[in-house]
């Protein structure tokens, strides 16, 4: 962890970069904020890399890479996929970014810790496989694995797909991560059960747009749901239709572009498992059109802007996947 901070200082000191994109300390141990550091002093004071650096930094590079000078960005495996996807879509000026790949053992989530019944947590320390939490009500222990963010429990890849330099070892894809298990489980349900499941989940949506605004694939200049002239603007989730509409279209718009970084679900204040929508598209495209991982490279055509003459017909839906009768 110190190594990362040291690298940030070194890069800035050497003049290789003028700014550093990383994470800044908060009031607590867990409320870290993405931040741009311009001086060594700032870094020494506030730069932090810890198991609570969940935020994906790639999206900030859309704006940051267009500013004067070069910026160093610390990217975790997940973030690196998003970075490559954004490069592919010409959203980032590559030459202005110095990518430092940082390995990640899975990021923790304060809400996961609290879900273990730990209240008023003010500090935390790792002891082997255990997290010891200091709370307003005394010390409590939580297994490290239980503190992991939901998405990190089914991490698809520890590979940093693109970097200018790497801290630590590069990892590999994990095809057996089981990230589609929940999707399969849903597919195996009846249509009624699925409908009930999604109604219950989506009905909590408050249309705060956190999922959209954090999403590296949602980098439109103006979202169709904010666009008054297009006639598609939709500010409030007035009813279940608009909840469905927003999330279906958003998932569709990022289909083939979503790298499955899981930020949407992480930031949802209502804990809607939004990643299950994106993963459905990923699972479908993998099964129907061949394996495709957005952000894995700069060349492969995304499945929705590609085709083969013998693609399956849409009627495949009537017979495929879970027996939804």
């Amino acid at each position: 962890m110190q190594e990362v901070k040291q690298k940030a200082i070194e890069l800035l000191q050497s003049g290789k970069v003028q700014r550093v994109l990383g994470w800044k300390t908060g009031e607590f141990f867990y409320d870290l904020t993405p931040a741009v550091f311009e001086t060594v002093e700032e870094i020494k004071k506030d730069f932090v890399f810890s198991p609570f650096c969940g935020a994906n930094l790639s999206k900030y590079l859309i704006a940051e890479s267009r500013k004067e000078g070069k910026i160093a960005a610390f990217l975790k495996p997940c973030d690196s996929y998003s970075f490559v996807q954004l490069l592919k879509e010409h959203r980032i000026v590559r030459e202005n970014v110095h990518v430092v790949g940082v390995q990640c053992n899975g990021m923790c989530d304060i809400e996961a810790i609290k879900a273990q019944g730990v209240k008023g947590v003010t500090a935390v320390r790792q002891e082997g496989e255990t997290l010891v939490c200091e709370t307003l009500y005394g010390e409590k222990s939580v297994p490290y694995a239980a503190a992991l963010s939901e998405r990190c429990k089914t991490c698809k890849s520890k590979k940093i797909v693109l970097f200018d330099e790497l801290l630590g070892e590069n990892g590999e894809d994990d095809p057996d991560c089981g990230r589609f298990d929940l999707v399969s489980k849903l597919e195996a349900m009846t249509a009624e059960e699925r409908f009930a499941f999604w109604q219950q989940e989506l009905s909590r949506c408050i249309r705060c747009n956190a999922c959209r605004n954090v999403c590296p694939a949602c980098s439109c200049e103006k979202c169709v749901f904010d666009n008054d002239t297009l006639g598609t603007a939709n500010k409030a989730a007035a009813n279940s239709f608009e909840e469905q509409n927003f999330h279906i279209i958003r998932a569709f718009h990022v289909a083939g572009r979503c790298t499955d970084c899981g930020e949407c679900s992480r930031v949802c204040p209502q804990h809607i498992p939004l990643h299950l929508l994106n993963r459905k598209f990923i699972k479908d495209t993998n099964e129907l059109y061949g394996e495709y991982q957005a952000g894995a490279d700069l060349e492969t055509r995304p499945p929705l802007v590609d085709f083969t003459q013998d693609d399956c017909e849409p009627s495949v839906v009537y017979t495929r996947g879970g027996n939804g009768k």
Partner: protein
Amino acid sequence: MQVNGEFKPKIVAFCCNWCSYAGADLAGNNRLNYPAEVKIIRIPCSCRLNPMFILRAFQRGADGVILCGCHPGDCHYTTGNYYARRRMTLLFSMLDYLGIERERTRVEWVSAAEGAKFAATMNDFVQTVTKLGENRRLEDLRCKK
């Protein structure tokens, strides 16, 4: 929509200008009957169909939405229907995943020469949607009477 106690579905059919719209015209030329519940919207190509239009139709009270285009390989614009095919496959799969009846959406390739197929397709689709009954799972109550 209920008419005299009988359920009459609202069906929106998006037809590509070159094949299916002409196919629908041919069905008319040949006086092939299909239910009046089907209303056709002309689009230049099946690839013009934005998933938002489909959801919009359901929001506004449609009970079924069908897209008709040139047969794969025959697209007037060479490749449009290939993209449409992927988009619709994924969209339909997503709707199904959300528990929305999968039979409410359909894609059928109808050439300009297939007036009979157009009529048969519409007859069959209307029948299927009628059996499903009113669209309840993707409805916007504000738009219902």
